[in-house]
């Protein structure tokens, strides 16, 4: 299993779906572990009632059907599927509405879904998903990307500690890929995935949604920054180590300009 995770860390991210598929066929006994530890690209279905898209994941799946957060119905229909309690469903609906606006504000398009269900000890688990296609043929407003995708999965476990506080454990994964292609620089593709965790104990006076939302927002900003500055930055550094630019003055000027903007 460790070897399998090692392989997933080295295979080019754009091939991760094929790699996971291959590993699942070779290691069927480890499929539960693999599916929970390796992030797969997100798929969507269209809700038949509202016409809105919803994201598929293990948390809204029962047998081979998936539950839409908009209509609360399984697609394809299921006779005795699992549903969240009425109370949690109410929270789930509110979460979906608010998260959709959050998604609009940060992603200028894209699809979001939230699924909430019971956990032990009066706690619950929420799964917040976002899928954005930023290619210029889809939702890429500025048209830079020939291909681009950002997919985020946030799983947050909420456990009430006492009347006034709750513990929130967030595990977030982001998978992203961007490709630009033009005459002067050819094909340029950066892709990758990272996973982080964050735990907080917070007062519940403003409601769970508020707490979860803020944690997710903070986490996403951290991940975006990390991907951009650290991860992409390291690959850029590597290139410049392989073949140092021959005009050092110009480089440091553009780097200074960069620092001012970021």
């Amino acid at each position: 299993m460790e070897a399998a995770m090692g392989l997933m860390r080295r295979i080019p991210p754009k091939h991760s779906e094929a790699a996971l598929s291959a590993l699942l066929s070779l290691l069927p006994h480890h499929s539960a572990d693999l599916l929970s530890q390796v992030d797969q690209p997100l798929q969507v279905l269209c809700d038949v009632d509202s016409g809105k898209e919803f994201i598929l994941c293990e948390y809204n799946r029962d047998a081979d059907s998936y539950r839409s957060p908009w209509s609360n119905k399984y697609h394809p229909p299921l006779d005795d599927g699992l549903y969240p309690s009425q109370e949690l469903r109410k929270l789930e609906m509110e979460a979906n509405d608010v998260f959709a606006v959050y998604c609009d504000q940060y992603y200028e398009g894209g699809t979001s879904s939230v699924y909430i269900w019971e956990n032990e000890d009066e706690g619950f688990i929420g799964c917040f998903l976002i899928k954005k296609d930023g290619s210029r043929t889809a939702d890429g407003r500025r048209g830079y990307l020939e291909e681009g995708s950002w997919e985020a999965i946030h799983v947050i476990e909420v456990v009430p500690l006492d009347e006034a506080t709750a513990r929130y454990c967030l595990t977030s994964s982001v998978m992203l890929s961007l490709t630009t292609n033009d005459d002067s620089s050819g094909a340029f593709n950066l892709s990758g995935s990272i996973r982080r965790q964050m735990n907080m104990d917070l007062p519940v006076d403003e409601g769970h949604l508020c707490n979860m939302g803020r944690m997710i927002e903070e986490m996403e900003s951290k991940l975006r920054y990390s991907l951009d500055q650290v991860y992409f930055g390291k690959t850029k550094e590597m290139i410049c180590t392989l073949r140092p630019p021959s005009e050092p003055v110009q480089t440091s000027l553009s780097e200074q300009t960069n620092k001012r903007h970021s």
Partner: protein
Amino acid sequence: MSDEEETQPTDDQKIEIAKWFLLNAPAGEIQYIAKDMKAVLQDETLYTTAAAVAFPLYNKSHMICLDFPDRSGEVMVTPFSEISENEYLDPRTAQVAVVDHVNQVCRRARPANDEELPTPYIEEYRYALDIEVTKYVSEAYPKGICSVYCVNGKDVEEPGLDFELVVVISAARLSPQNFCNGSWRSIWNVEFKDEAQFVEVRGTLQVGAHYFEEGNVQLDAKHECKDSTMLMSPEDCAHSVTTIIRHHETEYLNSLQTSYSKLPDATFKDLRRKLPVTRTLFPWHNTMQFSLRRDIQKSLGLEK
């Protein structure tokens, strides 16, 4: 994902999977992938079959560089220097290396025989270009290796016929302890066209980088370019072609840097903004207000 029991893949399928993982290893990482693949497959025979096919392809594609056993020089494993599956020519020392692909070492060397080497006429051009390119590579790359091969017309003995040389440049920086590896590969096809008296130069540049500390991020970039110069003496051609190579490679590096510099504020923004247009964090506590606003927006047809 379907819940049905997957039937075990056949031996052939397992071999294909192993080959696929090995071939897709980033630069300098095939041995790590090999180790993990062996553990996952749990079958020496199947792994060995896959490795025997995958390693030569990988080595040639990444143009790995091996030392001669007597340290008399280096040989690059490339499709252009291949004499047979395990034999690779080093024109500089006129030796042929016998190579163990799976262990990525040179087992022994033998002198190249006449049929394997180009004619003195061709060698003049090849040698002159080799000198210039080697000088360029030592200036531009801290740890670059290069070689020049004749891939067409190596038996041409005098002016009157076309021939083709290939310049390969490879630089790899492996820093596994820092979770970062990278590679630069350039392949320059230099066609000497006798009748038109000019030289056509076509380059393919490929750059890769992998950073994997608590994550997995990879860069994969490729670029093709063309240029030409007059057919002159071997030394003048060498100088001219190398200038072309230097120019295009420098330009490409600059454009890579530009692509990177556009990331934070432009390119990445198409995926996710740093902050909403309001330039403030999302007002989670005002959720009711937002739901309402969204409904109003929708009914006014303001949403896209």
